[in-house]
């Protein structure tokens, strides 16, 4: 037998559910300290001209798309499937497609920001795709398979 340096897989998954707290943080109450409720997440779309990236710390309306049928802040993310681990990777993917129904987004957009609307709109991740416009129609982002290779969020 030999010891192997590693970050424990269980820890990666537990980080996604807030089971550890290494430092002080100001949180919006999750009702219970021992059995906290899940946070809510939202998805906002951003123009090609915007600059959202790893440095993004929170949702902002700057550079967000606008148009008929689209509300600033975007739409709620369906989160019916809790984070899990697969092999040595912790994974999470929204449990339903992101669907912006009957919108007109005339200026090209190419990114979606997932953010925590319960905890002060803290940013989670930015995902880019080929630029799109929508005219009096529906924009759908279908999520990848929730596995170690494809999940939307992976701690590998």
């Amino acid at each position, binding site marked *: 037998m030999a010891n192997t*340096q*590693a*970050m424990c897989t269980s820890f*990666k998954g537990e980080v996604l559910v807030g089971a550890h707290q290494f430092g002080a943080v100001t949180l919006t109450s999750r009702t219970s300290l021992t059995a906290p409720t899940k946070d809510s997440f939202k998805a906002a779309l951003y123009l090609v001209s915007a600059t959202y990236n*790893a440095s993004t710390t929170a949702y902002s309306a700057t550079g967000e798309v606008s148009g008929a049928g689209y509300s600033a802040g975007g739409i709620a993310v369906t989160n019916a499937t809790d984070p899990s681990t697969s092999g040595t990777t*912790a994974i999470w993917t929204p449990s339903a497609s992101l669907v912006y129904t*009957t919108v*007109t987004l005339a200026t090209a957009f190419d990114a979606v920001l997932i953010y925590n609307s319960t905890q002060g709109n803290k940013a989670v*991740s*930015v*995902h*880019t*795709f*080929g630029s*799109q*416009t*929508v*005219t*009096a*129609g*529906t*924009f*759908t*982002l*279908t*999520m*990848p398979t929730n596995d170690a*290779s*494809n*999940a*939307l*969020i*992976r*701690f*590998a």
Partner: protein
Amino acid sequence: MALINTTHGPLEESTLARTVHFEDRPTEFVVSVEWKLGDELVRRDAHVILKQPSVTADALVASFG
């Protein structure tokens, strides 16, 4: 007779020209449907199917010695 919601309100499908575009990109597959009334684009839907996420976080630990 199906009605399609457009920039001019609901229009009969038979009065519109419909085109479907497919794009297979490394990280996504895109299906877009455009409806035109003459030369005017009156509706465009886009469906982006993410194949792989654009971000992955590596979790690392330091070694000693």
